[in-house]
């Protein structure tokens, strides 16, 4: 992997206008302050009306398309939980042949996007995703990561972090909640040799929309791993939905980066990190953790940050500054 020459900072890419038009319509059944809506809405603003959405089973699906209503003003399909990648492969193949046969205007640019949860991507849908990436279907795969199976009631997934208490990895006397750490989905996707893979965070909306744009312009499959805060699953007050996501980035728990044709670039540098405790303590799912266990998580993050800085060749994510306040007022970052 090559490292990009320059490291544009936060919001550098925010110089294109989003349309007024809403394609993700209001009136859905997502939980109060669920950030799935933030992701979907901005995604469609960037991708536009000529977009086909493939939505595997999960929160987004059950709360936005309850017959006879829908919140999607674009063609949308749900097939099953584990097959987003392969359904999209079939759609992409069909569009190719239908363009050749003159059924669809060959000049029409059509975006195909899979909008899938972490379970539908990192677990049951992993194989279909890998097949799709390997075969090079031109599909944008958006994984919204709420770090658990939220639709079925907060079970652990392959991207649930260490220490989180879930219903299938509950914190108990013997075990402090989930014992595995997040599966590195962008690294796995990028290892398929695809042109574009990135992480994003709806709290950094300009960075996120820029990545949707780059994904749409990619000359092959694109994979976006987007952190998504979940009130019932993470157990925070709804008013903190964006704040908790900011803390994820401010603590280095979540690093916003991209791998563009093999070039690695951190898109939201963090000169000084807050301790991960700031991110954890806002959430009920970590409330049981003992100081040693929080130290374990801090160590996991320090290691990931060191690896990113090593790849970049300089300290793009800075050291922990215990003097920083956890909840600085918005804008005073």
């Amino acid at each position, binding site marked *: 992997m090559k490292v990009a020459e320059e490291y544009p900072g936060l919001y550098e890419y925010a110089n294109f206008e989003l349309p007024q038009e809403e394609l993700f319509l209001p009136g859905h059944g997502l939980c109060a302050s669920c950030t799935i809506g933030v992701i979907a809405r901005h995604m469609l603003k960037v991708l536009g*009306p*000529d977009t*086909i959405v*493939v939505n595997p089973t999960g929160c987004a*699906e*059950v709360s936005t*398309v*309850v*017959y*006879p209503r*829908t919140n*999607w*003003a*674009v*063609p*949308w*399909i*749900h*097939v*099953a939980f*584990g*097959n987003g*990648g*392969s*359904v*999209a*492969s*079939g*759609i992409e*193949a*069909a*569009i*190719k*042949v*239908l363009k*050749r*046969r003159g*059924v669809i205007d060959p000049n*029409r640019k*059509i975006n195909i996007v899979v909008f899938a949860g972490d379970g539908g991507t990192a677990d049951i849908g992993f*194989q*279909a995703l*890998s*097949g799709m990436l*390997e*075969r090079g279907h031109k599909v944008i795969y958006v994984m919204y990561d709420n770090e658990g199976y939220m639709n079925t009631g907060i079970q652990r997934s392959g991207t649930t972090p260490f220490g989180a208490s879930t219903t299938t990895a509950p914190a108990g006397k013997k075990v402090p909640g989930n014992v595995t750490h997040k599966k590195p989905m962008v690294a796995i996707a990028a290892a398929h040799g695809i042109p574009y893979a990135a992480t994003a965070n709806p709290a950094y909306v300009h960075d996120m929309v820029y990545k949707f744009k780059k994904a749409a312009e990619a000359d092959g499959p694109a994979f976006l791993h987007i952190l998504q805060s979940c009130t019932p699953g993470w157990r925070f007050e709804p008013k903190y939905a964006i704040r908790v996501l900011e803390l994820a980035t401010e603590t280095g728990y979540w690093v916003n980066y991209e791998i563009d044709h093999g070039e690695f670039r951190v898109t939201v540098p963090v000169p000084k990190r807050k301790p991960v405790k700031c991110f954890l303590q806002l959430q009920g799912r970590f409330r049981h953790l003992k100081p040693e266990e929080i130290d374990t998580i801090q160590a996991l993050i320090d290691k990931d940050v060191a690896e990113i800085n090593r790849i970049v060749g300089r300290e793009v994510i800075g050291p922990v500054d215990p003097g920083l306040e956890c909840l600085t007022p918005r804008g005073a970052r």
Partner: protein
Amino acid sequence: MSAQLIREKEKIIKQKRIALTGNHAVALAVKMARAEVIAAYPITPQTPVVEKLAEYVNNGELDAEYIPVEAEHSAMSAVIGASAMGARTFTETSSQGLGHMYENLPIAVGMRLPIIMGMAVRTYSAPINVWGDYSDVMSMRELGWIIYITQNAQEAFDTIIQAYRVAEDSRVHLPAVVAYDGFWTSHVLQPLDVPEDEEEVIRFAPITRSWVKLDLDNPAQLGAVGTPEWYWEIRWQAVEALRGSTKVIEEVDNEFGRRFGRRYGLVSPYMLDDAEIAIVTYGSVYGLVKKAVNKLRSEGVRAGALRLRVIRPWPGDLIAKYLGNVDKIMVIDRTINHGGPLYGPMATEIATTVQRPVYNVLATIGMRAIDSDMIYEAAMKVYRGLWAPGVPYTVGLRGGYE
């Protein structure tokens, strides 16, 4: 061959006789029907179909997208996606491959997608057995697919073409599977009449694109959540479409007969007019059954036979008509309904249809070979009252119930 010959010669299109295996006959039909997206995964005994199709696409003989998916779950998912986009699609599988697809099979029905699937039938593991029996296709009976069971390569070829026309008919919009014996049909070289002008096939079965699609200019949502207030009504439309497809299947078969000179019906009767004993079965063993019937007839037993060709929708009226006056009905099932009311699925359904017990015989399980003498002997036992109706018997099983 069980095809009923049609007399109106002048309407029949020009054909040439070639020799192909059942599998290659199916691939040729798919090519002539100009499938647009093919997604499939190899499994014995259907593999030569998807290999041949890959060859057609790579040679430029068929303008289609071939998706070499990583598993059958994805094969069915990909054809669902492609069909939802409006393309004519094909996939094929057998046995565990069908098992791996299973989750998506009722979804294709609920979305009313006219996917065509071939199936060279094979039994389920364990023990591993790659050979042909009807365990796989019979496990699809409750899902809403149209199910054809064909007897030979010619019929498999013809039925694939018919199936496209039926499935894409706006009165139907359902997926269909065309099954044929693993090995006994899939791998045996057989004579085959195919149109000299390939275009005849697409003329007979033009791509209608009449189903609900992912249309950018008229966005639809496919696969929405169907709450208890809605699910049943929506599903019932698929139930009714399957029921109504009987008429379309017959219409299409008749017109195919007029144009191509071969027609098969929903069932194929043989010497049933005055029969006192009827042998009912499906797939390639029907040839042996007819031979056994001939032998029984030569010995003065008024025997007849019935072959089931379309088992979903169930042609109950027709079956009742053909079998209603027959004293003894012996059904040879080629798969086991473990622990069921009878041990054979078709025996159970025939018994319900004629509203009396039938003689239930299991044979060819795991492709155990049988011959016409074995069928003859079983029929004789039934005829002489040595076997009782309503209980399972076996033919060819060491230590079985005989």
